[in-house]
């Protein structure tokens, strides 16, 4: 751990905020990607059965 001096709070909090925000963005994107992919498969198989 480097010595951050009196600004430790600012540096650490900005890293924390940014990394959390990036992770949230990635997580939301991946979750939605998976969900839509699954739903599309469901719909496609249903459509095939019908027609």
């Amino acid at each position, binding site marked *: *751990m*480097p*010595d*951050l*001096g*009196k*600004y*430790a709070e*600012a*540096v650490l*909090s*900005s*890293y924390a*905020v*940014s990394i959390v*925000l*990036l992770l949230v*963005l*990635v997580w939301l*994107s*991946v979750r*939605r*990607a998976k969900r*839509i*992919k699954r*739903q*599309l498969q469901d*719909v*496609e198989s*249903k*459509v095939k059965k*019908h*027609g």
Partner: protein
Amino acid sequence: MSANSIWEYANPKKFIQTTDRVLPWISVLAVVSLVVGLIWGFFFTPDDYRQGSTVKIIYLHVPSALMAINAWLMMLVASLVWIVRRHHVSALAARAAAPVGAMMTVIALATGAIWGQPMWGTWWAWDPRLTSFLILFLFYLGYIALWEAIENDDTAADLTSILCLVGSVFALLSRYAVNFWNQGLHQGASLSLDKEENVADVFYYPLLVCIAGFVLLFIALVFLRTQTEIRARRMRALLARERMG
């Protein structure tokens, strides 16, 4: 048309196939360069003689600010492609990029505020650059909201792409207006082709790695989200057809 023309990827199926192949590589590269760049910047660079350790925030602030602007530029290009050539993938890519760009704007604003607190003695100042970014964020919000509000995909693509064009002009105008309105506290550009104006080398190389990481992360996210939008669109079309038949 030649076999490896870029327009080939305008075919949604082809786009999904290709991006499926390259997406793991880009994601891994993005994560590696982000981890390397941020660790390099955080642990192995000296403090600045004026800013102390807060200089380390640069590795998040500058790349996210860059990507906030570049994401809008990418949306502008994608919108133009949609208007001129009417490739659906292009319109959907613009839609996919907007939330990523908005998030980058938030990160740039947040890290800037946290840095400004000890350095300028205030979380927020109505400085031209800060104000422009806030306005850019509002443009992102309006763009996303318009996409969400319209049900018909083609209408939404047309309207949002025109909004993107008009918005770009007004965002640029706002930038100059804000400059005129208030002289700022913000320092000049951290990066430029002119070597003299650059930040010192010790900060420069890890910063480049971080920027590469952010760019790759942006590309990976846009690919993934565009795939999602293509699938969602296909699903809506299938459901609509089933209801009809």
